């Protein structure tokens, strides 16, 4: 058995990528090597069988920015939303491209693992864009209700589509 470690785990954790300058703890192919000691087995089993704690919402800069954009006078909220939507969409396009590249290596456990991690990025980016869409729709409805007649009529919403 490899190096003893107090927790029973040796180097279990997020893979180091080239980006953080490391390679520490990984082999030539970038795989992190870990092994489990006897006393660690129970702890590992417990770790895997316990759901990850949902802490209180983390500090969300985007939510804070949008909240401020809505309250601070003179900010073009539509522009703030669209700029973020485009940026997040571009990231989502990148993840999707990486996913397509990863699809070829799905049979290997490492390929499947990478693919699942990318899925997680996709879901997170998608959720952010849906929240932006939702915020925009709410703001527009509120604006319409504030000035029912004076605003130039926006293209009316097709009721059969809205029902979806």
């Amino acid at each position, binding site marked *: 058995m490899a190096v003893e470690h107090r927790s029973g785990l040796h180097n279990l954790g997020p893979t180091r*990528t080239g980006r953080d300058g490391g390679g520490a703890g990984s082999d030539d192919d970038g795989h992190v090597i870990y092994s489990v000691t006897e006393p660690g087995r129970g702890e590992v089993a417990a770790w895997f069988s316990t759901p990850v704690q949902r802490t209180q919402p983390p500090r969300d800069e985007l939510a804070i920015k949008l909240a401020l954009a809505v309250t601070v006078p003179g900010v073009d909220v539509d522009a703030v939303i*669209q700029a973020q*939507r*485009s940026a*997040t*969409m*571009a*990231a*989502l*396009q*990148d*993840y*999707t*491209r*990486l996913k*397509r*590249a990863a699809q070829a290596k799905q049979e290997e456990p490492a390929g499947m693992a990478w693919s699942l991690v990318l899925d997680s990025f*996709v879901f997170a*980016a*998608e959720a952010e*864009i*849906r929240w932006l*869409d939702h915020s*925009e*729709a709410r703001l527009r409805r509120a604006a319409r209700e504030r000035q029912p007649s004076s605003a130039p009529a*926006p*293209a*009316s*919403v*097709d009721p059969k*589509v*809205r029902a*979806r």
Partner: protein
Amino acid sequence: MNQPVLDLRDVSRVHGSGSTAVHALRSVGVQVYAGELVAVMGPSGSGKSTLLTLAGGLDRPSSGSVLVEGTALESLDQGHRARMRRTAIGYVFQDFNLIPALTAAENVALPRELDGERSRAARRAALAALTEVGIGELADRFPDELSGGQQQRVAIARAVVGERRLILADEPTGALDTETGEDILGLLRARCDAGAAGVLVTHEARYAAWADRVVFLRDGRIVDETRADRPDSLLETGKTR
């Protein structure tokens, strides 16, 4: 060679007139080249379907011009436009639009037979298209004997049969679960990688992300655009497309 397959030039579409006029599209310009998949995103009522029906010659612009492979659709008479629709342009809709009384192969073969092709040749082309989308073995089933995802594959086969160069898809994943939806996007993507030009209308970001470019519509106007071919990648330098 560097001519776009689809070229919308300053296209507007107004429904009705006077105080009840609805400006479904306002001065929209979009070019889609061979090998490219472009996604159009926007909330309900933003003009996505209008853009697609204009691109496919199912509707005419109030002003501006729609060119498919360099030919202005509005310059064609009824007969030529209909022929263009059957031979150069393929459609995929959210609700599949398959004819219930026809088998999968017959649904796919129909546009070619309407175009005067011998039915044996049309069936051969249909089987090839169904095989390409992964359901060759279901060719003789009727739509109600197929799952939603399988029906959408038939619809895609029908849209691509006969090497059509422009594929237009309006919410093709709307009725499908996430994984099946991704499969359908994979098929559209593959077709574009093989040289077709594609336009995908969707309100779901995860599907739009398969495109090379994403165009955002609001109230009939293009408000922004993203590209996927940025030189930097967030995570690693994967091969481009």
